[in-house]
């Protein structure tokens, strides 16, 4: 079997996954709500903002508001992606599509790969469309093309791949809703941990430390877990730094992305292994 022959059913299954999801009423409603939210944020771009008695420039306002909107969209689409992904295998099973596909000369890895690609493409499109609205509004307001938004969007797509693969894997091992909640807990854990880490390294935290006091031992459970925890928040920060062109330490810049890519590969391998040994009912 050559590559194009092997990829043909993968792409077909991906297409069916994508079209089946788009046909769902819940998808259309969610998309409409998200698009309305992004359009409503438009009003914030024209406001006059005073910080410490100083009026912010229009450019600062546009950049700040669009960055916040960008972050909300990236995090929100992760949640929506988890919602789409959690029911995919179960629905295919109950509607007979799994047996229909796997009774054809199609290998299980091709089926799983098709599902992953379909869900990933769908969620990336969902996010890119919403980000493009922000990009369009920001570019119009500043009268300059802000292509960095789209690069940042591409970076955030790795988070979506992580969500798709992990929810699909966990949905094979536990109830769909539990799989969804587990992945959400991982995501929330990542944001909270990065927040605490940023706070502990802030100037306020440094100032609060007693002069002459010995710093606590770093070998706690959390300091061991923190570096290997899925860096969903880190990837979003990396994307955000692309938008604002902030200086990002070289190692810190790439580590979250490498962390998420490695997780995608490891969880993807486990997903193929687990589905390969599943009984099809």
């Amino acid at each position: 079997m050559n590559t194009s022959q092997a990829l043909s059913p993968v792409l077909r299954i991906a297409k069916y996954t994508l079209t089946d999801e788009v046909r769902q009423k819940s998808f259309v409603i969610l998309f409409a709500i998200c698009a309305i939210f992004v359009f409503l944020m438009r009003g914030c771009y024209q406001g006059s903002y005073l910080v410490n008695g100083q009026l912010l420039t229009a450019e600062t306002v546009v950049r700040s508001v669009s960055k916040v909107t960008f972050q909300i969209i990236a995090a929100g689409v992760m949640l929506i992606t988890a919602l789409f992904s959690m029911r995919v295998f179960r629905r295919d099973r109950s509607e007979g599509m799994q047996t229909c596909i796997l009774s054809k000369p199609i290998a299980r890895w091709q089926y799983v790969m098709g599902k992953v690609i379909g869900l990933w493409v769908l969620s990336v499109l969902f996010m890119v469309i919403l980000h493009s609205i922000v990009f369009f509004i920001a570019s119009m307001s500043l009268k300059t093309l802000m292509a960095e938004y789209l690069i940042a969007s591409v970076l955030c797509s790795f988070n979506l791949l992580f969500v798709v693969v992990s929810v699909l894997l966990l949905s094979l091992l536990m109830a769909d809703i539990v799989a969804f909640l587990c992945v959400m807990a991982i995501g929330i854990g990542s944001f909270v941990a990065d927040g605490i880490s940023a706070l502990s390294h802030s100037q306020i935290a440094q100032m609060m430390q007693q002069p002459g006091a010995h710093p606590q031992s770093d070998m706690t459970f959390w300091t061991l877990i923190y570096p290997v925890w899925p860096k969903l928040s880190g990837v979003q920060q990396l994307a955000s730094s692309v938008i604002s062109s902030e200086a990002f330490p070289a190692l810190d810049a790439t580590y979250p992305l490498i962390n998420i890519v490695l997780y995608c590969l490891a969880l993807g391998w486990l997903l193929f292994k687990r589905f390969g040994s599943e009984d099809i009912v």
Partner: protein
Amino acid sequence: MIELNNVTKQYDSLAAVNQVSFSVNAGEYFALLGPNGAGKTTIVKMMLDFTRPTSGMLSLNGLPSTNEACRAAVGYLAENHHIPPRLSGWQYLLRCAELLDMSPSDAIDQCRRIVELIGMQGREGTKVETYSKGMVQRFGLGAALIGNPKLLILDEPTAGLDPIGIREIRLLLESLKNQGMTVFLNSHLLSEVEKICDTAAIINCGKLLVKDKISTILKDGETLEEVFIRFVKG
């Protein structure tokens, strides 16, 4: 065409299929009979690699069942067949044709032919959620026939159908007989099996009790139902 060699499927301490061996030749209409829980569906699932045997070998078209290429010329109708309700019968058939890597024009030609064969002209465009059980079953059988398979595996094709639906499925299967297709039929309806199948095997508690030509199994004017009860009750 189908070869089972000492196949066993163990679920914890229960042997759903126990050292079963038989073969089905090309062009044969074969029925696998047995009471509920005898292991018939497990055998079908192992043939299609939906579940793996604990021990033994299964092959389809000369290839091990774990090789997806063995399903290249196989049509399958599942027990309690389902079709996604948001699709129309036509969209479902088209998907099945596309999954067999057919060109768009070939897929459309095949689907037209199948719709005619299953007698669903005029209803193929409506959503599956509006179909009766019999119509879903007909589309399921139609989907199994796409790509002109050499082997048709039918798991309880008449389950849930009324007598008219059962007769229609039987007539359809009889019409396929002269096309040289091999049919593996898993059914409870012994009268229907007697009418269309050449060979039968009876299985109970995972063990193969008999496998022979139906004309050989039936003795002294017995019906298949009487033979079935005789074997199953021991």
